[in-house]
Every structure is written in structure tokens, then in C-alpha cells.
């Protein structure tokens, strides 16, 4: 037998199966056998998987523990995914969310029995309003794009109730890709505005398309190139003058919290991504949470129920005739709210401000150190993320995908690639505030080493990764002919 490292190879659990091997003892049934074919309609019966794996408990544990060790997460390494704010999730959040008063409550309990949970939600709404300069908030939406939809539905309802429905929404090409999708879903037609090589949109560009059939301008600020839309106040005036609203996608709030309030810049609606800015788990570890803050004018349209505070008592108010209705079963992803609440309380005003300052500083440190090695399409001070491209490396036929794959050999999660679309071959790096200078330096050195490798031996970069479990995958074939489950 050849020696082998079990860490490096793990067969499918089907391959570990042995007839009648069992992880648990099932008591003998005291009712007669049920033959599926007699009780379940034939068209619902599946015949294609007959043999489910039969394995012992320890084999199940080892199998999934090994697979979990192949994972890469914020807890295992640097994860500079631009546009996503993959910040560290402090463990104190987990302690707070697991307190019995939060983890064992049930939404069907009466308001009387849920006072603690309601208080947390009510205060979290207040904190988010304070941070953003908004007047009221809802915690219902389950993720950022859900929050966007919530905001756009409120705007649509506002115009509908005034008997003056509006058809259009203006969206700059520096906005997140979900913005047009959310507007469409809320029934609007999207009018695109292009930035003209300066990375931000201009008041002139907005004025040229703004009219009285336009319900809103929807932008992401800081925008998706990591730049602050510095004309936002002037743009808001143009839009407001024609009776429209400003929706700001708050996905990039991590760059400005505690420093600037979007509400002071004319923003009427904003969504918060708790799983980004407020350090709750992101990606597969979610779920997400996308609360929405609004100015007074839109407050009646917020989803119901709303949380009402009277003296020291909290209750749920369903009597909201103008509300767009309920957006999510019960009241949203509560356990995520508990984590975000914990983060805000632990950090305090000064802590949140410092986090944003460090996030911006770290991004600019990387930008400055890498700018000679990678092409920087917008060469100016950035906010919390910096966008490079593969322009220099392309001359050696090394592209963004190759650079990303090669980073895995250095133990880093690749940054966001090929987004934003307005930068060809984009490499979008967002380090977040929690990384040490040593971590940033080792990432910078890896990137410089890859840039050098592109000149010296481009094939090594083009065929990366070399040190991972599995090498370069045929992503095209996987996308064209996906095999999504085990087949015998």
C-alpha cells in the first residue's frame, strides 16, 4: 500500500458505504412497513438513487470534518474580496446571539414575552438611523438586494398613492449590479448614466436625463470603483427639484460610518448590509440581513409590522395602511440582528469611526504599494477598496483569472475579479480594517511576486494553482455541462 495523506484526498461519502453499516440504532417500528409505492404518487417517487450511503458515525464525522478543513474563510486567512466587505466576525457577536433570551425566543410568543428581542430590534433600528442620518428603519429584508427591492417598492408605492406613477430610475454605471435588477423587479425602467473617465458621476450627466417621469436615482456610495460620489449633494438637489428620490446602496458603508451621514447629503433611502458593514457572517455562513432606512416622507410605506416603543414597553404595530406589506416571514433574520447589535455596542461611535478609517487606510496602503506593478485605471486616493487591472500582465498573455488562481498558491483568497464591469480585467481588492500591517505586507509581496513571475515565467502563473487540493478546473465545461449530484 502506498502511503498517503488523508488530508489531501477524501472520496465521496457514497464510496465509503458498506451494506448494513449504521451510525445510529433505529428502534423496531411498531407499525407495519410502509411501501412507498403504495402511499406516494408514482410521479413523485425517485428511483435513480437507490443506495444511500451506509456509514458509521465516526466515518461521517471524519468525512465532513475533512471537507470542512478544505474550506477557506475569514477565520483561516486573508480574504480581500472587493465589493463584499469580508470583514472578521468577532466572536463576542456569537456569545451575544447565543444568549438564551435571544436564541430560544419564538416569534409566536406574545409581545409581552419578547420584550428583550423587541428592544434589541428597536434599538438596532435607532442605531442604524443615527449612523446614516435617516428617520426610520425596518429590519425585515433578508439581504442587501432584498433591501434594495424594499426601498424601490416604497418609492413606487409613494408615487402610486399620489396618483402620479413614475416609470424611470436613473442608475450610474458605477453602481452595484444589483441596483438595476432591483429597480426592474419593482417595475421601473432603468436609465443608465456613465461616468466619464473620472470614476464618479457628474451633476451635468444626471441633469441631462432627470425628468418628472423619473422616480429615483439609485447609486452606490462609495461607488463600486471604491470612490466617493463627491457630487452627491448637488445631484440630490437636481433629483429632488423634479420630485424624485435618492436611493443609496449602503453596501460600501464600511468606508464612511461614523464619519459622514448619507442622510445629510440628500439620500432618502438606504439599505445596510449587516453581513458586510456590521460584521455578521457573510457568504455561506450567512444568512444576510439588509435593513432599510428612510426619511420621514417614506416612513408610512415601511414594511409591516413596525416595532413601536411606548415608555419602556415594545410592541408590534400591524395597523399600517400605507405599508408595502410584509417582506419576510416573521421579522427578518433576528439572530443576525443580535450580532450586528453586539458589534455596534462593542465598538461604540469612536470604534466604528476608527474601523472606517482603518479600512480606508489599509486599502490605500495596498493601492500605493501595488500601483507600479498593476495597472490602476483610476489613479487617485480610494475609499475602502481599490480596483486594479491586468493591463500590464496581458502583454505576456497572463490575465486576471491567472493572477487570481496564482494567489491561492500563496495562501490567499483571490480578490473580486472581472468586476466592476467598467474596468476590463478588473482586480478589486478590499482588505478591511482588521488586517495587520504584516498580513497586508505578505499579500502585497505575493502580488508583486506574481507580477514578477509573469515576466520571468508566465507559464507558472497561467497554470496556477499548483499547491491546492485540485489544480485549474475546466470552468467552462463545468458551467456548460454541470453535473450537480452524484450519479452511481
Amino acid at each position, binding site marked *: 500500500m502506498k502511503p498517503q495523506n488523508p488530508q489531501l484526498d477524501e472520496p465521496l461519502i457514497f464510496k465509503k458505504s458498506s451494506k448494513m453499516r449504521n451510525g445510529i440504532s433505529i428502534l423496531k417500528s411498531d407499525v407495519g412497513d410502509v411501501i412507498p409505492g403504495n402511499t406516494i404518487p408514482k410521479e413523485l417517487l425517485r428511483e435513480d438513487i437507490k443506495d444511500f450511503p451506509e456509514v458509521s458515525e465516526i466515518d461521517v464525522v471524519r468525512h465532513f470534518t475533512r471537507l470542512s478543513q478544505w474550506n477557506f474563510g475569514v477565520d483561516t486567512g486573508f480574504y480581500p474580496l472587493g465589493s463584499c466587505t469580508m470583514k472578521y466576525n468577532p466572536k463576542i457577536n456569537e456569545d451575544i446571539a447565543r444568549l438564551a433570551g435571544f436564541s430560544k425566543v419564538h416569534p409566536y410568543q406574545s409581545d409581552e414575552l419578547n420584550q428583550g428581542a423587541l428592544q434589541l430590534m428597536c434599538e438596532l433600528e435607532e442605531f442604524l438611523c443615527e449612523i446614516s442620518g435617516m428617520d426610520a428603519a425596518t429590519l425585515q429584508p433578508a439581504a442587501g438586494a432584498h433591501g434594495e427591492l424594499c426601498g424601490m417598492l416604497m418609492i413606487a408605492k409613494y408615487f402610486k398613492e399620489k396618483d402620479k406613477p413614475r416609470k424611470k430610475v436613473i442608475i450610474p454605471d458605477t453602481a452595484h449590479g444589483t441596483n438595476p435588477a432591483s429597480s426592474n423587479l419593482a417595475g421601473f425602467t432603468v436609465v443608465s448614466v456613465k461616468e466619464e473617465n473620472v470614476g464618479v458621476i457628474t451633476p451635468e450627466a444626471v441633469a441631462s436625463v432627470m425628468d418628472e417621469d423619473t422616480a429615483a436615482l439609485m447609486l452606490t456610495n462609495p461607488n463600486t470603483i471604491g470612490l466617493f460620489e463627491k457630487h452627491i449633494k448637488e445631484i440630490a438637489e437636481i433629483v429632488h427639484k423634479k420630485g424624485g428620490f435618492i436611493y443609496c446602496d449602503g453596501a460600501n458603508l464600511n468606508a464612511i460610518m461614523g464619519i459622514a451621514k448619507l442622510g445629510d447629503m440628500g439620500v432618502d433611502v438606504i439599505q445596510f448590509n449587516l453581513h458586510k458593514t456590521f460584521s455578521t457572517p457573510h457568504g455561506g455562513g450567512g444568512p444576510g440581513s439588509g435593513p432599510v432606512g428612510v426619511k420621514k416622507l417614506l416612513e408610512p410605506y415601511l414594511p409591516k409590522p413596525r416595532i413601536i416603543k411606548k415608555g419602556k414597553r415594545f410592541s408590534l404595530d400591524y395597523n399600517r395602511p400605507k405599508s408595502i406589506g410584509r417582506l419576510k416571514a416573521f421579522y427578518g433574520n433576528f439572530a443576525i440582528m443580535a450580532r450586528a447589535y453586539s458589534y455596534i455596542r462593542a465598538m461604540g461611535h469612536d470604534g466604528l469611526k476608527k474601523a472606517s478609517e482603518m479600512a480606508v487606510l489599509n486599502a490605500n496602503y495596498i493601492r500605493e504599494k501595488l500601483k507600479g506593478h498593476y495597472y490602476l485605471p483610476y489613479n487617485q486616493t480610494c475609499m475602502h477598496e481599490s480596483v486594479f487591472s491586468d493591463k500590464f500582465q496581458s502583454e505576456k498573455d497572463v490575465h486576471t*483569472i491567472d493572477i487570481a488562481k496564482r494567489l491561492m498558491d500563496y495562501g490567499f483568497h483571490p480578490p473580486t*475579479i*472581472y*468586476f466592476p*464591469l467598467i474596468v*476590463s480585467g478588473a482586480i478589486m481588492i478590499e482588505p478591511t480594517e482588521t488586517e495587520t500591517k504584516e498580513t497586508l505586507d505578505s499579500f502585497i509581496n505575493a502580488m508583486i511576486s506574481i507580477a514578477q513571475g509573469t515576466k520571468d515565467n508566465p507559464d507558472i502563473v497561467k497554470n496556477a494553482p499548483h499547491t491546492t487540493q485540485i489544480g485549474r478546473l475546466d*470552468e*467552462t465545461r463545468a*458551467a*456548460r455541462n454541470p453535473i450537480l449530484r452524484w450519479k452511481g
Partner: protein
Amino acid sequence: MEFPKDVRYTKEHEWVRVEGNVATVGVTDYAQDSLGDVVYLELPGDGAAVTKDETFGVVESVKAVSDLYSPISGAVIEINDALVDSPEVINDDPYGDAWMLKVEMSAPAELKELLTADEYKKYVEEEK
């Protein structure tokens, strides 16, 4: 990179070939090269209306998902079903077998606003 002279181009990288009042639409060689391997294509149904500069479909590659913009306005009279099943043809033969729509034009004058092969080639070189 190919820039055939018998088609007109848009800045969004679609091409259109005109025979009588029927316009055939696809994406350019530059578009397929920038997209990389195409894995999915979504087109409108027969009879759908398309409007110049508005989206008529979606193309997805291993890198990104992109909207397709109609170069002209009119009614769709035929779609390339085979292409939906084998979108990789977009990479192999963008100006031929990878045609996407045939459109009965409602405003043929719009064609004048499209780019010639030389103009498009110049535009693409600047964009790079």
C-alpha cells in the same frame, strides 16, 4: 480580430446585417473575445418587440453576465434556437452561425446611427 464590412456595429458590441427590411443581430468578435468562454444565452421569444438601445437578452461567460442591447427597433421574427442550446458557437463564429435574432425593422432610419466597420474598429482600439 475580425471587423467584417458587410455589417454595422454598436458601441455595446452588437452587429447587425440587413437584407431588405430584415435585420440579423449578433455580438462582435471583440465582444466574444472580451467575454471569454460563453456558457449561457437568453433570448426573447418570437414576436417580441425590441427597441434600439434597450436590452433584448443576456449572455453569460465564465467571467461575467452581460446585457445584450438591440441595435435597431422592430419585431423579432426568428430566433436562433440552436445557439441557445450551444452558446459556445458565439466564441467560434460570432458573425456567422452565432446570429441571435432576425428582426423586422420598424424604423430602418436608425441604421444610420450605427458604426461602420472602420469606425467600430477605431472605437474598440480606443477602448482597449
